[in-house]
C-alpha cells in the first residue's frame, strides 16, 4: 500500500518538474521573441517613416531649413572621410598590438598590465573617449573640431575591438605552423608576416569590420568634440588637379556625420524633420547591419573551411 502511494507521489513530482521545464521552454522562446519583435518594430518604424524620403535628391542635397529639400550629402561625405582616418589609425595600431601581445610578449607583470588595460578600455563609456578627444586632440594638440580629431577619437574607441579580434585570430593558429617555420630557419618576423598574418587575416578582418560598424554609428564622442550640426559645404577634395595631386586639407575641415545629422533632425520640433531622421536612421541601420552581417558571414565561412 505504502509503496504504491509513494510511486504515485513520485509520478506527480516528475510531472510537476516536467511541467516547469515546459513552462520555461515557452518563457525562453517568448523572451527571444521580445528581442526579435522589438527589432522588427524598430526596422518597420524606420522604413514606414523614412522610405518616402529616400530619393536620389536626399543623397545629393545639403541640410536645409526646409525639411523636404534637406539631404545628407555633407553627412555621408563626412562619415566616409572620418572612417578613413579611423581605419588608417586603428587598424595598424590594433593589429600591431595584437601581434605583440600574442607572439612577442613575455609572460610578466608588464604584459599582464597591458592585457588588463585593453579589457578595461573596452568597457569605458564612449562619451569618455569624446572628452579625451576634446581635451587632447581639439585643444592640446590644436586639431580643432576637425575630421582628424573625430577620426582619431573613434580610432581610440575601436582599438580594443581590433586588438581582441587580432589576438583571437592569432591564437587559433596551431603552434605546429610556427615550429615548421622556425625549423626552416625563419626569423620571428618572417614567421609572423609570412604565416601568422595571412592565416589570421580573415579573423582580423572580421574584427575590423565590426569595429568600423560600431564607429559609424557612434554619436556621443563626436558630439562631445563639438562637431557642427549644420554643415552646408563639403570639405576640400583630397584629389587635386596639379602636383602632387593629393591634398590633406580635408583633415582639418569642419564636418558632420550621419548620426549627428540624424540627432539634429530628431531634436527638431517639426514633424517633417522626423521623417528625415528616419530616412537617415534607415541608411545607418542598413549600413551597420550589412557590415555586421558580412563579419558574421566571414566568421561562419572561416569556421567551416579551416581545419588545421
Amino acid at each position, binding site marked *: 500500500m505504502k509503496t504504491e502511494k509513494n510511486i504515485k507521489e513520485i509520478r506527480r513530482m516528475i510531472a510537476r518538474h516536467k511541467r516547469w521545464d515546459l513552462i520555461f521552454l515557452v518563457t525562453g522562446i517568448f523572451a527571444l521573441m521580445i528581442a526579435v519583435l522589438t527589432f522588427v518594430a*524598430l526596422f518597420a518604424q524606420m522604413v514606414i517613416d523614412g522610405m518616402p524620403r529616400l530619393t536620389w535628391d536626399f543623397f545629393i542635397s545639403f541640410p536645409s531649413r526646409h525639411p523636404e529639400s534637406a539631404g545628407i550629402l555633407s553627412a555621408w561625405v563626412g562619415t566616409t572621410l572620418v572612417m578613413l582616418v579611423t581605419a588608417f589609425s586603428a587598424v595598424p595600431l590594433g593589429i*600591431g*598590438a595584437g601581434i605583440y601581445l600574442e607572439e612577442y610578449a613575455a609572460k610578466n607583470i608588464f604584459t599582464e598590465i597591458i592585457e588588463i588595460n585593453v579589457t578595461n578600455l573596452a568597457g569605458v563609456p564612449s562619451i569618455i573617449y569624446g572628452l579625451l578627444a576634446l581635451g587632447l586632440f581639439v585643444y592640446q594638440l590644436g586639431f580643432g573640431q576637425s575630421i582628424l580629431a573625430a577620426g582619431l577619437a573613434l580610432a581610440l574607441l575601436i582599438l580594443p575591438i581590433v586588438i581582441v579580434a587580432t589576438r583571437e585570430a592569432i591564437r587559433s593558429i596551431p603552434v605546429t605552423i610556427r615550429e615548421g617555420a622556425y625549423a626552416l630557419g625563419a626569423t620571428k618576423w618572417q614567421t609572423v608576416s609570412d604565416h601568422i598574418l595571412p592565416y589570421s587575416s580573415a579573423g582580423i578582418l572580421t574584427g575590423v569590420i565590426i569595429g568600423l560598424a560600431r564607429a559609424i554609428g557612434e554619436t556621443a564622442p563626436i558630439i562631445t568634440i563639438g562637431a557642427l550640426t549644420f554643415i552646408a559645404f563639403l570639405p576640400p577634395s583630397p584629389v587635386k588637379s596639379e602636383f602632387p595631386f593629393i591634398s590633406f586639407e580635408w583633415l582639418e575641415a569642419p564636418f558632420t556625420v550621419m548620426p549627428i545629422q540624424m540627432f539634429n533632425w530628431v531634436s527638431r520640433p517639426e514633424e517633417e524633420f522626423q521623417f528625415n531622421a528616419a530616412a537617415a536612421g534607415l541608411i545607418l541601420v542598413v549600413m551597420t547591419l550589412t*557590415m555586421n552581417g558580412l563579419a558574421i558571414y566571414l566568421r561562419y565561412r572561416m569556421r567551416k573551411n579551416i581545419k588545421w
Partner: protein
Amino acid sequence: MAVGSRTKLKHPGKLGYSFTRHLRERFIELLLFLAALFSVGITIAIVVMLVKESLIFFQHVSIWEFLTGTQWTPLFDDAKYGILPLLSGTLVSSMVALLVAIPLGTIIAIYLSEFAPFSVREVAKPFLELLGGVPTIVYGYFALLFVTPILQIIFPELPGFNLLSAGLVMGIMIIPYVSSLTEDAMRAVPMNLREGSYAMGATRLQTAVRVVMPAAFSGIAAAYILGISRAVGETMVVAIAAGMQPNFTWNPMEPAATITAYIVQVSLGDLPHGSVGYQTIFAAGLTLLLLTLVFNIIGHLLRKYYREIY
C-alpha cells in the same frame, strides 16, 4: 657540424647570423611593442585629462557641494553644482534598463544554452549579435517616437520625455551583451556536470538553474557587470528620449538628465574653452568613469572569488 669547417665562417659560433637581419627584427619588435604600449597610453591620457580639468573645477566648487548638492544648474547665472540630480537620472534609467536586460538576457541565455536545438541557436546567436550592432542613436529615435507614444496610451499622464521609455529601450539594447556572454559562460561548463545531473533524474531546468548556473557564476557575473557599465555609460538613448533637464527624482515616469546627457547638452552649445561650464563636463565625466570603475572592480572581485576551475 665538423669542427674544421667552423674556422672558415665569418662569424665564428654564430651560424647564419646577420647583423642587419638582427637589427630589423629588433626594430619590428620595438614597433609592435610601442603599438601595445599605446593602449596603456590611452588609459593614462583619459585619467590625466579628466583629473586635470576636474581639479581646476574643484578649485571653484567644493567637493562637498558637488557630491551633496541637489541642484545642477551650472549654466545659469545663479550656478549650482550638485551632481545628485544627474546621478539619480543615471541610476534610475540604468535600473529600468537592467530590470529588462538581466532577466530577459539570462532567460534567453539559458534557453539557447540548455534548451534550444542546434538550428535555433545557429540562427538566434547571429541575430542577437546584429541587434547589438544597431547604432544607439537609432534606438533613441525608436524610444522617443515609438515606445513613448505606446506608453502614453497606458499611462496618459506620462510626459513626452521620460526615463521609463529610455530605460526600457536601453534594456532591450543591452540584452545581446548580457545573453551572449552569459551563454558563453554556461556553455563553457563541462558536459559531464550536466550528465551527472541528468543521471540523478534532474530536468533540464533544474540542471540549468542548480548545476550549470552556479558553475558558470563568475562568467555570468562578468556579463551582468558589462551590462551595468553599458547602461550607466549609454548616452544617445537617454539624451534623446529622457530630455536634458536635470531633475532630482527617483521616479522613472519623469523627465531627467543623466551624466552623459548633460555632457551632450553642454557640447551642443558653444562653451568657451577654459570656462567653468567647460570644466563641469570633465568633472561629470570623471564621476561617470569612477562609477563604471567601481562596477568593474566589483565584477573583478566576484570573478576572482567564485571562479570554478575544471
